[in-house]
């Protein structure tokens, strides 16, 4: 990959073991936890639910069902603030007070590609790297698209976050079994990409893949190394065409977390009801936690020792792409790999005038001229922003990071993108 930036990696939770936390009093399960059609609730207020019971589903192909993480009662179905989007329907579950056993692993499970795909959809599996694209759609390329490379994304280039790398250390074997399943669905070569600073993860996976011919490649530490397009370029040299998908060039990319979930779905019949999340930044005891979906951010922060000082920004995700939250009462969603807290003293500096230094160009992995798009956006010339490829931006935030004037270039580009999309929809 060309360009990109080198922010301080700040992986303070590196090597901290994944811990289970106390089940919270309430779980907030959002009906929109994937790209595609929103789910409809299958349960009513006051209804009893069982662990792993399907509680939300949509009849659309591009969508995945949702499951209850616990035995409990549906307390209410409300509109609730969503961590990465607008308010949406949300089932509030009050868990029964009890302990849960991990479902038993059945190593003797036999499956074939088609069945596996159905199970993957049924177990609600989506891309856990953040985009939450339904995995069954990704793994069934349309007629005529030949996939010859499966890329497993363990780059984790976002500073602070260690959920993926810790998962690789503790569950390398399971991840490899998950890769086997994908390999059975799509017969193609497998490349695992991991950033060079995660030596333990690389070692763990190397040991686990010894019986396979999967390739593990160490990648230079750089942000956004783990962004799909950048990762494909780094590992295969191929370039995803503008507006296209990896499958157009014969590649499918899966995050290690997703692969682990695929393993659990097939061998344990366990839907995605929990995930590993890094809680870090200005909290007292940062760490990696395995927790149920719908756990509120404040419960997670409490599990991490509570706020260290007065929080200023609470992010869903890492510092480069993380979404600042209005409130810490939002629930954990499938694609949420980290919660980062910054106090006032890490406040982003105020912006000054652009001095046209060109640093945004030097770092843009998409080879855009962010400054020009931002200027057009600021002046509400969205057509010109479109002509200058605003839509090619994948919002990594390198331009803002590098900007010496601390201008919110990405914010302006996002505005253009929203405006361009709106115009397109109107047509």
């Amino acid at each position, binding site marked *: 990959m060309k360009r990109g930036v080198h922010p301080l990696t700040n992986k303070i939770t590196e090597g901290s073991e994944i811990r289970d936390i106390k089940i919270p009093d309430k779980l907030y399960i959002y009906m929109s936890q994937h790209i595609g059609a929103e789910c409809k609730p299958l349960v009513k207020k006051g209804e009893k639910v069982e662990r792993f019971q399907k509680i939300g589903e949509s009849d659309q192909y591009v969508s995945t069902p949702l499951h209850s993480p616990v035995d409990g009662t549906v307390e209410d179905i409300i509109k609730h603030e969503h961590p990465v989007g607008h308010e949406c329907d949300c089932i509030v579950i009050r868990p029964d007070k009890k302990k849960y056993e991990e479902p038993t692993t059945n190593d003797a499970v036999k499956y074939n590609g088609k069945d596996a795909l159905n199970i993957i959809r049924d177990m609600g599996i989506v891309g856990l790297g953040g985009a939450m694209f339904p995995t069954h759609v990704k793994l069934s390329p349309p007629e005529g698209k030949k996939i010859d490379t499966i890329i497993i994304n363990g780059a984790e280039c976002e500073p602070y976050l260690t959920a993926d790398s810790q998962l690789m250390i503790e569950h390398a074997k399971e991840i490899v079994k998950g890769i086997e399943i994908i390999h059975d669905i799509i017969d193609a070569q497998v490349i695992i990409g991991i950033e060079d600073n995660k030596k333990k993860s690389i070692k763990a996976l190397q040991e686990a893949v010894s019986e396979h011919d999967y390739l593990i490649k160490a990648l230079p530490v750089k942000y956004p190394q783990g962004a799909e397009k950048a990762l494909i370029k780094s590992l295969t040299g191929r370039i995803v065409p*503008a507006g296209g998908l990896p499958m157009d060039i014969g590649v499918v990319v899966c995050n290690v977390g997703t692969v682990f979930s695929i393993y659990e779905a097939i061998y344990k019949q366990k839907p995605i009801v929990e995930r590993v999340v890094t809680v870090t930044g200005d909290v007292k005891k940062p760490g990696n936690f395995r927790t149920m979906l719908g756990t509120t951010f404040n419960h997670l922060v409490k599990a991490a020792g509570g706020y260290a000082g007065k929080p200023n920004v609470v992010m869903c995700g890492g510092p480069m792409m993380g979404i600042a939250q*209005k409130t810490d009462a939002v629930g954990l969603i499938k694609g949420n790999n980290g919660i980062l807290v910054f106090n006032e003293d890490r406040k982003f500096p105020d912006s000054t005038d652009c001095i046209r230094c060109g640093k945004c160009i030097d770092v843009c992995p998409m080879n855009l001229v962010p400054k020009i798009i931002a200027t057009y956006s600021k002046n509400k010339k969205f057509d010109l922003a479109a002509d200058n490829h605003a839509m090619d931006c994948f919002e990594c935030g390198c331009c803002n990071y590098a900007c*010496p004037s601390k201008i919110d270039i990405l914010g302006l580009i996002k505005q253009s993108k929203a405006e361009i999309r709106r115009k397109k929809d109107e047509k």
Partner: protein
Amino acid sequence: MKNNLQVRNAPHVTSGWTSQKIMRLVFFALLPAAISGIYHFGLSAVGIILTCLAASWITDVVLQKVTNSTHGWFNWSSLVTGMLFALVLPPTVPPWVAIIGSVFAISIGKYAFGKGNNIFNPALIARTFVAVSFPAFLAKWITPDGVTSATPLTLMKLEGYSAVTQQYGSTLYNVLLSGDIGGCIGETSAIAILLGAAILFIFGVIEWRIPTFYLVTVAVFSAMVGRDVIFDLLAGGLMLGAFFMATDYVTSPITYKGKIIFAMGCGLLTMLFRVYSNLPEGVSYAILLMNAAAPLIERYTKPRPFGWKPDKKVIKT
């Protein structure tokens, strides 16, 4: 814990660079050239440099009040402009010319266009302004010994290159490097300027394209018309112009290809002025003319984004 969280766009971390840090580095990178000027031309150079710095700074503070802008009373950018302007003045100019030029540089050169949107390099446009308004003061050259004498390029223009070699003999390159020769305060010592340029490169303040293509174009042109290439590179304002003036962020294109075209244009014009015009030197006019062309160059040199094929015309203007 509700409602007192700050909602802002990602990213939430930033590099250590700030505009003021960049300007401060440029200011320090100019110091070797300034010190060389002071060493060779003495107190008059000190006076001119301090006058320009003070006048630029005061103008900036006053205009900040007038325009209600908020970047604070201390601003390295105005000091850089003042310093650059001082360095392109002959050591003999009276203080009032320095003051008028500095005020012009900040007020018309920068603020009139809106900061960060000026078309022309403020120091160079101010130099041109005083050169046109008070031509007599801007054409009076002395050697470091205080003797009135033509600069090497003027001598070459008037009497030809043989006169230059006659006067300086084998020490010609040495004096051009050390700065022990007539000329503007900060232009004479190539070594001092290169030292400053090295600082800019090491800290990544300027990138290599503009200076490299500027100097290479000059060298190629010079060789083609049969002039002394090393003399052309070292004499006059070329070194200061290539490293500190043409690389000005605001007035040069920001695209990579644009920078190359811009620099080649600067080199071509510089040599056209030197060889075919009545002027002995053309660096400042060359850069100013290319400044005017910079927005157009930028418009036609936008890069091809990742994932686009070369054969498609991808950038509409």
